[in-house]
């Protein structure tokens, strides 16, 4: 049978606030254990939570970014469960009245097509601490630095159909939250963690199958593999006439498999009820309007603008609009050279290629966008060829200065002087009488090929600096 998979994702996004959601402790990653844990974070007797206004601001920003309705009166609830890294014995979360309601946003697939994915809700909650089981000789250490870090839990509709779409969704989400500057989106440090809900149904069916939940998958690649694996697992069971058990599973990246969590790890009744230590969060229209005004152009809008205004392919627009710094860089390059297509090509192939080879980021890039634009301008005005430009770019990367300075210093300016070129061409023709003879006897098709040979020889003799277009024109005259 043909199975269709139905996938919904819950993403736990760490918000990049300076302090925790309910205490003044810092949220820096990687500090010594328990150095960023105050009496509130330790749930000492009598301590009370105070809501961080910045976290609310960020959540609203996200809501506006996906066109969602903002909860005008959102409520915090206690989610009760015992675990050593949950110091109060409950997590402060939002249950019935989340801060962000239904929304929707567009994802872009590798084949250049787009899809719209629904967001059910997003709510604020606090992160837990960490249990450390190594180095404690059969005991566990508790690090509460992370306890109380603000999380926005973003719940998608079951609109996703396969692993590719899931990854595209996560990438689009990553792009959105970094555009909004509400999260560093650093997946390696756990800033974006994902739970996957997945079920299968017969192709064409409109009812939902029984789902399994895969917890805490922390990279795009693992999401892809976990989903692929889980689809296979469920399909195998269903093909054999079995039934899927509704359960929570863990993805084991080392073995590339999902397996059920121990039943103890799954709490059944969280006994949610409104957190009496916090007041409802009341948000008025003016507050929302203020945030709306400060929203940057978002990835989807930018992508469409790049495609329309610059005439880029969906693929190119998608790559260039992926992050705000890259998009901004690209637009400066375009501004300096006035040719979006060549700029798009240079940014994607040369710049991103070089960044990738050197394992560095745009923030560390030694070539300013305006300088790259200047280089492209020299190609466009015929000062240098594309090939020479690559040499110049190398030199710019090494910090030798602007394109003009390097072209000048290295004497790379293209020879477009017809007198000088004619001299070289005469020499080349004189040096290859056999080929000249062949050319004169050849038919139209073969002549083209032989012209290529002569152009190559001229370029070689000019050390690549001859203007290829002029060489072609002059050769055509000289060879008849």
């Amino acid at each position, binding site marked *: 049978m043909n199975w269709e998979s139905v996938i919904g994702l819950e993403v736990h996004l760490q918000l990049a606030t300076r302090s925790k959601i309910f205490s003044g402790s810092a949220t820096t990653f990687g500090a010594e254990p328990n150095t960023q844990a105050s009496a509130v974070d330790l749930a000492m*007797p*009598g301590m009370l939570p105070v809501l961080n206004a910045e976290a609310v601001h960020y959540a609203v920003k996200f809501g506006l970014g996906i066109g969602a309705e903002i909860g005008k009166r959102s409520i915090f609830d206690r989610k009760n469960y015992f675990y*050593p890294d949950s*110091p109060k*014995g409950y997590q402060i979360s939002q249950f019935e009245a989340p801060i962000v309601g239904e929304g929707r946003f567009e994802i872009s697939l590798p084949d250049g097509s787009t899809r719209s994915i629904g967001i059910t809700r997003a709510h604020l909650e606090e992160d837990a601490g960490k249990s450390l089981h190594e180095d404690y000789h059969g005991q566990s250490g508790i690090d509460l630095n992370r306890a109380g870090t603000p999380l926005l839990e973003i719940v998608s509709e079951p609109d996703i159909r396969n692993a590719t779409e899931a990854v595209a969704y996560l990438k689009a989400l990553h792009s959105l939250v970094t555009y909004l500057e509400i999260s560093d989106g650093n997946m390696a440090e756990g800033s974006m963690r994902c739970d996957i809900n997945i079920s299968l149904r017969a192709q064409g069916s409109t009812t939902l199958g029984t789902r399994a939940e895969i917890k805490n998958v922390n990279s795009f690649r693992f999401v892809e593999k976990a989903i692929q694996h889980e689809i296979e697992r469920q399909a195998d069971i269903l093909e054999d006439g079995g039934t899927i058990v509704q359960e929570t599973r863990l993805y084991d990246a080392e073995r590339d498999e999902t397996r059920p969590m121990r039943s103890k790890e799954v709490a059944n009744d969280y*006994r949610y*009820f409104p957190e*009496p*230590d*916090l007041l409802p969060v009341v948000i008025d229209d003016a507050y929302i309007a203020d945030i709306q005004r400060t929203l940057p152009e978002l990835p989807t809008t930018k992508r469409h603008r790049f495609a329309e205004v610059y005439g880029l392919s969906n693929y190119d627009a998608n790559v260039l609009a992926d992050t705000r710094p890259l998009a901004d860089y690209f637009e400066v390059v375009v501004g300096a050279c006035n040719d979006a297509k060549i700029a798009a090509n240079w940014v994607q192939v040369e710049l991103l290629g070089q960044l990738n080879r050197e394992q560095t980021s745009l923030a560390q890039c030694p070539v300013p966008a305006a300088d790259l634009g200047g280089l492209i301008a020299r190609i466009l005005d015929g000062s240098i060829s594309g090939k020479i430009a690559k040499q110049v770019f190398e030199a710019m990367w090494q910090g030798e200065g602007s394109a003009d300075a390097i072209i000048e210093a290295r004497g790379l300016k293209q020879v477009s002087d017809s007198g000088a070129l004619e001299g070289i061409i005469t020499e080349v023709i004189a040096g290859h009488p056999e080929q000249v003879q062949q050319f004169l006897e050849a038919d139209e098709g073969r002549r083209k090929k032989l012209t290529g040979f002569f152009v190559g020889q001229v370029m070689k003799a000019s050390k690549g600096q001859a203007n290829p277009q002029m060489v072609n024109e002059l050769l055509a005259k000289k060879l008849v």
Partner: protein
Amino acid sequence: MHKHTVSQLSRGLREGKYSSVEVTRHYLQRIARLDERYNAFISVDEQAALAAAEAADARLASGDGAPLTGIPLAHKDIFCTQGLKTSCGSRMLDNFVPPYDATVIERFRSAGSVILGKTNMDEFAMGSSNESSYYGATHNPWNTGCVPGGSSGGSAAAVAALLAPAATGTDTGGSIRQPAAFCGITGLKPTYGRVSRLGMIAFASSLDQGGPMARSAEDCALLLNTMAGHDPRDSTSSDVPVEDYTAGLEKSLEGLRIGLPDAYFGEGLDSATGECIRLALKELEALGATLTAVSLPHSALTIPTYYIVAPAEASTNLSRYDGVRYGHRCADPADLHDLYTRTREEGFGDEVKRRILIGTYALSAGYYDAYYKKAQQARRLIRQDFLDCFQSVDIIAGPTTPGPAFALGAKDNDPVSMYLEDVYTLAVNLAGLPGMSLPAGFVQDKPVGLQLIGPHFGEGRLLNIAHRLQQATDWHTRTPADGENAA
């Protein structure tokens, strides 16, 4: 000296009649000699108290004294005190020394008052008799065979027995007013949000409120002036401006409209106690007040509502006591589950466990709508009843308790009859209103308390009414015999 009120001591200190060290030492000596009879204190730190008294004397000498500078006070052992054990009456926190002060304590410290010690209480403030304390029951100074009430029974007994000029208490369902009534002192539960809850160990977050317990309304006003105020670290604390509670004490009661809810004078009220209340109300009439019958139609919902809301909140507030970070931890836990269950089994007493079970049940899937949600709806109705009453009357009055202090052990096997003790006080917490209890006579040589209930942020008016009544009567000036001083 120990017969002085706080305001008398305050004057004496500023006039240099005696030093804070002398006053403090006097009370410390009384505690050392007499508290064996009452068991009102859990911790006393003489050295810290005397050091604070010295500092207060220096401040008084420099002319920089506030009204409470140099006044020794006792604090309920629910308020966290930096460097001084804060047990909440529980074995769970028997080893807990907070590294911080509650906001209330911080405010008293900066006012220059001296901490005499920490008073006994029902475990985690759950009780109406002080019998659920891990440190043993407190005895009522008027009759040591009787309970002092609870849960602020240690504070009430300490003030009544003149072991402290005044004390702090907390009130979740009557825990200031009922022991104040039983011990013949004056106690005020302020409007919810008037006094910061930060560092006050939580029982039921939406009901808990700290307040003063003293020998007069005037003293309560002095203490409340220091305690009250917005605290940005407590999100439920109110930013309504704080008035000077001593400023309006003398206002006339002419034209005061007092509402008497029929539900507070019906079945269940001890007749002799009712007689005392009626006499006290006559005094108020004589001072210019008029008495009107009012109705609180949802009174019958009060006890069931309270006993869902309070345990529900408590059940999760007490989850943090897990043996992981502080407090009691069972010996040699085999695994995490063993650590949790044995720590909590050993650390909590029966009444606390009972309420955790009730609360957990009320919040459980499938029961939430029937219990907790319904209780919240009932709570709104109860609150609305009071707001409706305050359309036609200025305050509401009645007895604080159905009868005077009962014998120790009398309700050991009957938790429900213990819960009924608070029938007149619980609704005030559910509605978030200010309420106070003040002495209004005696039944079988045991004090009776008159309860006054005001609209939100009406504590100033309540203190004014209580003060005028206390100027016209002398019930509040009487003190129990303690073997050293004739009553």
